């Protein structure tokens, strides 16, 4: 067996940066060097750092510490703290502004096919089989039937479509925050279906485009320059990380069959959804064309001067990215590349049926309800699939529950005192 923290090849098994920071803090030589390195990098002048012996010594020690290779997980607890630690080291060590930055997140091992299976279990409907229907509408229906998805979807829609004043169409900051909560807390079986549903007609494609309420979360009065947008994103650790993750998992690569690094569509779609989670960098479909998928952040390369090439390269990573397009189409068609993954993804343990037992019993086969099955015929508090009541002979009972507190209605005479009322 290999020493702790190392795998059989002698490589250090990466830990998350919060844990790595704790390990380093517990070890005097490491913690002092880390403090030194932060002071060296604080000056922002990387060259003076390289020339300074003390900084060099600190760097060498830290290269051997878990901090050097540490990474983070999307949606983990203390994700932002983890990312701050990651960038506190890596911001200083990179040679200035790189076009593609390495993702601070751990690689995604799950695959699209896992999502399809979970999607069909949760919603009882295979996302791609019924080709006739409007898949995006089906996705909205599936979400509306899941309490968690419905609540968080309504959360961001009501926030993003609420007009603040004549001049302020909506609160973009609150809208982004609500969107981030939706994508971080709702399983991708639901969010992907809303985002990447495949369409055969314009109505469906427009519904797909409207998923993130673009009038508030995406569009703006003017289009900034894309390099300006990237620069703003890179000043925010979370946005910078999600952009780096997108580049790492969606950058088109000619070496792979699918144009995606490691042929992993799920990794690309996950990092794309991670970018939507509430930044000005939020990308979206640019039109409602059912046939061609064109995605772009809200920016243009107008006014790039001599950096037009770099700007267009950045923009093309969204608008003309074969990996992203293939990944979206693959999800929409319910297909995944059946490559035996190098390290087989861990067996999927189906989550316990998390759906809260419906507060009101669903009388599925209530004969006299002309209407739909989920309508409740007994006025009773929540009963878990109680015995079948014989409707004809004994009327269903309605007994009271905890009180509803209601404000007193002003036009209501609350107390009609018998004496005052006068008989």
């Amino acid at each position: 067996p290999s020493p702790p923290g190392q795998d059989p090849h002698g490589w250090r098994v990466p830990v998350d940066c919060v844990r790595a920071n704790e390990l380093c803090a517990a070890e005097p030589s490491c913690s002092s060097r880390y403090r030194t390195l932060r002071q060296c990098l604080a000056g922002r002048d990387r060259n003076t750092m390289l020339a300074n012996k003390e900084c060099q010594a600190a760097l060498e020690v830290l290269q051997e510490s878990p901090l050097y290779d540490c990474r983070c997980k999307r949606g983990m607890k203390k994700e932002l703290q983890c990312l701050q630690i990651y960038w506190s080291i890596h911001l200083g060590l990179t040679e200035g502004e790189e076009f593609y930055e390495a993702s601070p997140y751990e690689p995604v091992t799950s695959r699209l096919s896992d999502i399809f299976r979970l999607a069909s279990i949760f919603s009882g409907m295979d996302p791609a089989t019924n080709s006739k229907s409007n898949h995006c509408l089906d996705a909205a229906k599936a979400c509306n039937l899941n309490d968690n998805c419905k609540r968080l979807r309504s959360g961001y829609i009501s926030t993003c479509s609420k007009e603040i004043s004549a001049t302020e169409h909506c609160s973009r900051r609150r809208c982004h925050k609500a969107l981030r909560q939706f994508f971080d807390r709702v399983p991708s079986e639901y969010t992907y279906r809303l985002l990447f549903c495949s369409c055969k007609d314009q109505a469906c494609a427009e519904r797909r485009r409207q998923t993130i309420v673009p009038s508030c979360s995406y569009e703006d009065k003017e289009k900034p320059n894309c390099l300006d947008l990237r620069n703003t994103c890179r000043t925010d650790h979370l946005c910078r990380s999600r952009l780096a993750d997108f580049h790492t998992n969606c950058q088109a690569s000619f070496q792979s069959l699918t144009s995606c690094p490691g042929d992993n569509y799920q990794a690309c779609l996950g990092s794309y959804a991670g970018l939507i989670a509430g930044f000005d960098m939020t990308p979206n479909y640019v039109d409602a064309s059912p046939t061609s998928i064109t995605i772009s952040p809200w920016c243009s390369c107008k006014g790039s001067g001599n950096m037009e090439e770099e700007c267009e390269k950045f923009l093309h990573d969204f608008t003309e990215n074969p990996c992203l397009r293939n990944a979206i189409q693959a999800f929409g068609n319910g297909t995944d590349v059946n490559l035996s993954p190098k390290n087989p993804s861990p067996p999927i343990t189906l989550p316990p049926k998390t759906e809260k037992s419906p507060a009101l019993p669903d009388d599925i086969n209530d004969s006299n309800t002309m209407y739909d099955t989920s309508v409740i015929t007994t006025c009773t508090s929540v009963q878990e699939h109680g015995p079948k009541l014989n409707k004809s002979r004994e009327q269903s009972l309605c007994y009271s529950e905890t009180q509803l507190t209601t404000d007193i209605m002003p036009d209501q005479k609350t107390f009609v005192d018998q004496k005052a009322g006068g008989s």
Partner: protein
Amino acid sequence: GLYFPRKEYSENVYIDQPAGTPLLRIHALRDSRGEATHFHLCQNLIVSRARSHENHWFQIREKTGLLYLSKSLDREDFNMLSVGSWMPLSKVMLYVFLSSHPFQEKECDSAMRTTVFLSLINATAPACSSLTARQLCFTEMDLSFHIKENKPPGTFHQLQLPSVHHLCQNLSISYKLLAAEGMPFRYNENTTGVSVTQRLDREERERYELIAKCTVREGFREMQVEVPFLVNVLDEDDSPPFLPNGTDTADAVVEFNRKEGTVLATLTVYDADTTPIYPLESSRKKYTGTIITDDPWISETFRVEHIFDEIHFSPNGSQVRGTQHEYKLVLNKSISVTEHRSFQLDVLVNDTEFHGPERSVMLHFNVSILPVSIQFPNMTYQFTVNRNAERFAQIGKICIENCMKFRGVNITYKLLSPNVSCYPVSILQGREDRWGSVYVNDSSVLRRPECKEIQYTIQATDKQSRKHTKTLLTVVLEGTLLKKEEDCPDSCAVSKHQAECEECGGLGVLTGRCQWRQGSGKGITTNYSTCTPSIKTCPDGTCDVIESKDAAVCPQDCTSGNIIGGHGKGIGNLGIKSGHGICYCFPRQNCYCEKDDIKEQLCDDVC
């Protein structure tokens, strides 16, 4: 100085390729004739995650820029270099530096550099026969280069792949550069080098699209492949500012709009050079616009705002980016209604980065500030009021001459109390309103027979100059008193049907009775049916100053409470912009919008 025609290069490196294998040819272009070029690899090999590693495997020829394997890469080297990378292939980075004299180590950071991405592939190099024409002819990197304008000619790329040429000697690989007539590029058959043959002028053309065509012959087999070959021309500030159609003068008249921030006039200056909008601050400093004056009043009262935008010029058919600079003369503070003067205001526009002659242009604004009078049109006001009107009934609007044109002039209206005890109306003014709204403030006075015709004096005052003016307002009471209906709600909005609506009064009614607005249209529409004190003012999408005095006057415009049933909220979440069927409200509580087509009694109160 010297510069690279690309920001980055990329090439694949396989395991066990012999030492000496050429990988990649890097070129440099000169800033001035005769400059010597020296290539150098500084520092280490950057592996993933900013981890660096000493470079034992790669070297570059100082003179020719040929990057080659100085030591073969075996499997162990590959594993060591791909630590921390979970991808099947590992990418390492090298920085190639450029200097016009032989290198000293410390120069590594200051010199010009380009990045080489080497994909280390965990397999031996494929046999030539297994490579496609595409792989034999071109690498994966796009053939896209940038050349600075106004610089001497030179070779900037070699089409032939050094590693393929080294390995596949038995194949005949030839290239052609397909280009339109007269393009300033030449292809050398022997060296497969591509060179720019003359100094380029970006303001003439900034983008050249050629095609690189490759032919691979093996015995009788011949394969051809074509890829785009793009050249972008980098801009230098080599053009002075100029006036689009020679106009350097504009009139700036200040009359009714005297508000701070008002744009009085705009003059445009063009520049054939580009001005990047990123990073914004540095670009904005490139072009300055200064008011030339020593009069402190002018410096305080006016400012110049400069915005620039990318435009396109089309010299000889091709499209070239340039810049349009707009200089706006703006009021820096509100001007008093009494101010009255005329003068010429000059603005000096300067292109700070252009070092040739005529780097600046003078703009002239003929400014004339006209006084404006605060007076009522020569008339008096007379409003008739129905004796059945209720409180908050809107009687009419008071406005001085040109009041709707005024901006930045704060006129307040006041009713001076009449000499009689009848005092039924008052005046109110919203924060943004330029008029005064006369409304019934005490409806009990309307019912008194002795009050028939009441005369008020209206005074309008300009806050800043304290100038004021007066006129007369006569309020004539008319109409016979109607019987007050029992148990009518105090708000018209409560009524759900036309009958109950029109038989009741409510706050804000003009004639003692509410008015029924019959809507039309299907679904959720702005033209919903509702009961209102006055169809003219409610609902009109605005919660005006009088309606906002009491929630019962016009909840359709002012409610911020729950609206139940199909609806769309108004601006700022106030009021009912659109509704389904009939909308009615219980003031200070909920509003409802529902179709009224359900007659069936559903388990009423006592069942």
